């Protein structure tokens, strides 16, 4: 059949509508295809996940050496109290035998708090592209927008997917660091109490990462490619230079009030991202 000979005499059903046209098809379900949505997020995140896993492996390998080195240094210089006080106020209440490994773990968590958002933050309306690390206006965005998926679902599930990546990384780091303590040797012994101090820190680290993920996600919704990249770069520098101590204190021993504020802030920022994504034109 040539295009010219198109069938104007196509089969016609009741009411003159062609067979198969609207009204003659079964009503389709309106359930959200969650598996497909998360498959989409997985495709987007798999490369950054590999990079983060490599980073986590390096941090795991470095952990025993870092703990051993810091312990030896502190034992030689006798500066334990002064040095570890920088980790956070919680350290002063801890027995000295627990302090070093925990303090090193906290420092690695701070590093993860900076790294993870850089690699996996997003709303589904922006994603890595050859043109840059964050590209809110990549043309393939129109493919996402043409899917039967609300922008609210897209932003929320994308945030959830990034959070799952962060959670996996934090748990992996915790496990590897606990295992690492086994090979450290005399200065540190594996104690249940030690693990018990690291787990709450890991949870607080996860809360800090969630807040950073939400904030960076919002940046990509608000700003265009260049400015999003600029703000991300400046934010990372600020985190490394000025906020490192604040993040360390939060992960080391945030109060209930601080944790509640961080959680509320995360929820509010994700809600703001959803509202902006819905209102925005593409």
């Amino acid at each position: 059949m040539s295009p010219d000979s198109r069938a104007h005499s196509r089969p016609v059903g009741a009411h003159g509508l062609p067979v198969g046209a609207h009204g003659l098809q079964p009503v389709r379900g309106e359930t959200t295809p969650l598996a497909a949505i998360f498959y989409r997020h997985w495709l987007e995140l798999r490369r950054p996940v590999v990079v983060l896993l490599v980073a986590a492996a390096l941090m795991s390998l470095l952990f025993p050496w870092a703990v051993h080195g810091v312990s030896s240094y502190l034992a030689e210089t006798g500066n334990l109290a002064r040095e570890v006080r920088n980790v956070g106020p919680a350290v002063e209440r801890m027995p000295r035998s627990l302090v070093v490994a925990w303090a090193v773990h906290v420092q690695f968590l701070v590093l993860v708090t900076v790294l993870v958002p850089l690699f996996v933050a997003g709303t589904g309306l922006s994603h890595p592209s050859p043109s840059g690390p964050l590209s809110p206006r990549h043309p393939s965005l129109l493919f996402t927008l043409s899917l039967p998926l609300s922008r609210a679902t897209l932003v929320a599930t994308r945030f959830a997917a990034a959070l799952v990546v962060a959670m996996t990384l934090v748990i992996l780091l915790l496990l590897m660091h606990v295992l690492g303590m086994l090979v450290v040797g005399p200065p540190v012994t594996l104690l249940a109490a030690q693990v018990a101090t690291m787990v709450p820190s890991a949870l607080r680290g996860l809360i800090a990462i969630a807040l950073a993920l939400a904030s960076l996600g919002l940046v990509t919704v608000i700003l265009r490619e260049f400015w999003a990249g600029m703000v991300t770069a400046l934010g990372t520098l600020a985190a490394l230079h000025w906020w490192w101590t604040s993040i360390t204190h939060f992960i080391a021993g945030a109060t209930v009030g601080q944790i509640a504020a961080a959680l509320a802030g995360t929820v509010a920022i994700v809600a703001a991202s959803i509202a902006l994504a819905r209102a925005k034109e593409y």
Partner: protein
Amino acid sequence: MTDAAIRVRELRKTYDGRAVLDRMSFDVPRGSICGLVGPNGAGKTTTLRVLMGFASAETGSTAVLGVDGPMTPALLQRVAFVPEAKDLYPFARAGEMIRLTRGFYAAWDHALEAALVGELEIPLRTWCTKLSKGTLARLWLLLALCRGAELLILDEPTDGLDPVALDRVQRLLVRQVADRGVTVLFSTHQLGEVEQIADHLVMVHRGRCVVEGSLDDIRQRYRVVRCLLDDERNDVPAALEGWRRDGRFLTGVSSDDPTEMAERLVSSGVQVLDAQPASLKDVFLDHVAR
């Protein structure tokens, strides 16, 4: 429920104070292949973006498949879209794009997918960033056609296709309409493409619909009229303003009845010489040149 698959009424949208859509109104009948044509900047892409819910109009309304208002996820299950910029995810392979899209649509046509992968020569293991413009266009069409959608909204769908691929795609679109009764609205600059596969036309210019109707009606309605000015008349009558003048001859496109027109113009010192059926190009140039 309206019999139009798409109804657009009085859409108005401005960018930086310039009206991109200026009371745009038209209908696309169900089961038709409708060509949306117009010069660059006429408002074609903006109209499609408003229809898809990517942008909003300041005033006016749209209805898609009988549903008023903006697109919802439920409605997007019944509509497939191909944009002007045919990039796909830089982080996915062609085969993964198909698998991903398949997961969103209950009515996905697996048999058609298998057929089109071969027919359109889609390299499944190639990253989308490595695909040529033509292959990306073919992949987009595969993703649109297999959704089992009732309405295809295609923005320059054949842009970047070589003549062989163009022919294949045109046949595919016609087959979809003939077999499944889907409605197709496609924008294009190629009037020949409209004449080849469309049965309905919406011509837009400066944000407005200037010609609308079935292709057969438009061909019957519009004529290229040639007139002769009387010797004593040097100026062009107001009714023929904008017509091409060559000495005492005037040529233009009109939808008026030639006999009535001749009677009307004779008192103005103008003689209608002949009226030939107008081609789409004649109609297009007439409206764009005005």
